[in-house]
């Protein structure tokens, strides 16, 4: 599967569809790959399906969820066919995840150090005493001051930023090949966010793990990711190198999203371009373009099924794709 000269894939999803109960799927035919040493961003607004992608990758979606597709390979394991024991062996070791709210993902009744050591014990990576020592080292790795003292404290004694560092220490314990970060800094202040992102970047460079960064914040994605995918109503609408996608977006949704962000520096629009309306459940079920009901460019032709098409006219960025049949016009308009 490895392309000559390229790093191996740690996540390989092809035409993956995720649904809950009846109704339209929350994620439709998603193609997504993360290579060793690469940071891939998944952007989108609430309900676009981005978190379901992470949970499906971890095998954490419960019974009502249906995950299907051509393939979903996570660190060379077939996650669609694997039973829960195989997935449990993967989680925390080869694949780790950090969540938005560190307080609810940490056990409030357990000391920090024991929570880090637990991962090592579960995966039989260390004995009891070695695990405890390694936990302190991991806390030091994530730049927690006085790690020996902190290891004996409980989550409520730590600030939000420190708790997120603990979560990262737990995620790093098994030396994973793939880290899933679901809105890792959304609950944090900007100055703390900058520190946490820098930490994730540093660890990623040092271990060359692959990272899937899920965020609604375009600034976070722009500063962190090599490749970005924009999701809307369960579909990827634009995908490619971050510089291209955020620098000269081709899909009307990506363009509208960028125009809706108020900027703290540089030129500022006199009036923010809001996207009218909201996503409706019917948009998810339509065979045509799901953004059409809110799109300024919508017209005859948009009711046809839309494919992800190469966006680069001159072929310079081969990985850049857009799900809009009018993308050649939108590209010219943006240029």
């Amino acid at each position: 599967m490895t392309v000559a000269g390229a790093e191996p894939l740690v996540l390989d999803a092809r035409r993956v569809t995720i649904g809950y109960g009846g109704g339209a799927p929350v994620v439709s035919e998603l193609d997504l790959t993360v290579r060793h040493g690469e940071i891939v961003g998944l952007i989108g607004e609430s309900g676009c399906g981005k978190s379901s992608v992470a949970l499906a990758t971890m095998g954490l979606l419960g019974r009502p969820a249906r995950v299907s597709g051509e393939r979903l390979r996570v660190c060379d394991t077939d996650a669609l066919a694997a039973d829960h024991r195989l997935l449990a062996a993967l989680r925390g070791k080869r694949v780790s995840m950090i969540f938005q709210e560190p307080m609810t993902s940490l056990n409030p009744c357990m000391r920090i150090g024991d929570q880090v050591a637990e991962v090592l014990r579960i995966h039989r990576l260390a004995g009891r005493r070695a695990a405890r020592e390694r936990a302190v080292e991991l806390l030091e790795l994530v730049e927690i001051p006085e790690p020996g003292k902190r290891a004996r404290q409980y989550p409520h004694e730590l600030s939000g930023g420190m708790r997120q560092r603990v979560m990262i220490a737990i995620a790093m314990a098994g030396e994973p090949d793939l880290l899933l970060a679901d809105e890792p800094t959304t609950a944090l202040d900007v100055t703390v966010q900058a520190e946490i992102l820098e930490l994730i970047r540093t660890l990623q460079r040092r271990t060359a793990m692959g990272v899937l960064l899920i965020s609604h914040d375009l600034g976070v994605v722009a500063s962190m990711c090599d490749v970005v995918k924009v999701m809307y109503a369960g579909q990827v609408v634009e995908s490619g190198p971050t510089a291209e996608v955020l620098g000269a977006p081709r899909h009307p949704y990506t363009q509208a999203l960028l125009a809706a962000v108020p900027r703290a520096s540089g030129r500022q629009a006199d009036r923010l371009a809001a996207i009218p309306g909201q996503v409706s459940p019917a948009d998810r079920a339509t065979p045509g373009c799901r953004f059409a009901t809110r799109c300024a460019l919508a017209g005859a032709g948009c009711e046809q099924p839309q494919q992800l098409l190469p966006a680069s006219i001159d072929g310079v960025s081969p990985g850049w794709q857009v799900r809009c049949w009018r993308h050649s016009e939108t590209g010219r308009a943006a240029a």
Partner: protein
Amino acid sequence: MSDVVLSFSGIGHEFAARGRGGAPLRALREVSLSVRRGETLSVVGESGCGKSTLARVAVRLYQPTHGTLEFQGEDVTRARGRALRPLRRGVQMVFQDPNGSLDPRMTVRRSITEPLQAAGVARQDRGDRAAEVIAQVGLPVDALDSYPHEFSGGQRQRIAIARALAASPELLVLDEPTSALDVSVQAQILNLLRETQAVRSLAYLFISHNLGVVRYLSDRVAVMYLGGVVEVADTADLFAGPQHPYTVALLSAVLEPEAGAAAPRRAALRGELPSAADTPPGCAFAARCWLATEQCRTVRPPLVETAPGRQVACHRPGEARLTDVTRQPVPAGPASRK
């Protein structure tokens, strides 16, 4: 100044410590600010800086422990009952989470007319007023007979704004009104707030941690750190040339969605906010400031005017530059391990 709607002078607010005889938590210390008719004054800062406490003092949900609060020239710091009525009508609040601030068992009409009833508006006029404000926030009139759960987050925030507008206030206190919303919906609400202000010459006290939003909406900005105001300036001046090192750090930490901003700018600040219960004697920011001197650690800098309309609380105002942030030496400490 006669056009001042609300003024805080030397406002301090302490919360009693929980548990065994701890020091009280000083959420606000000597905050002096005024909001003028028709303007937007934004208050920015990180969690725990006291900005939400200030918002709650503004609507007198809290009675401040120190200082004076004036509404249209009247001292309302300790007002009660009838004396508090003008403030109760004239200053309205919009909260961050519209799910929590709208009663799920009340129709939209009841939620909107309740403040009118409190303001003593006659029953037949209340209905007309409700229809008027619901149209103003861009919702159909039949929305009045629905319940909050029938609306999306953005629409609920429109309803919360309609309720705040119902009693024809002079000032809206907006506490993070868009931080629970998606960016595309946030833009709708920000535009609505701008249009509403232009039509009614309303004043806004806008509380936010999002600097992009603050720049878009405000005329003036006050930056808070650990309960105190560290800088006040016109929006354009503040964003073009911040004078307090904390403002510099805050601005440098903003990540813009620009392609090519690929390398994360280095975080200027190391370490955490000191506790508001145990603040150092000097400048509250000294422990995290890269310019701090001995004077900063021992003498608290007062908020002084450095130019017309511009105030800074710093012993070395204007010395911190946005461009040096990437080259900041990291203050010594256990957290500085590379």
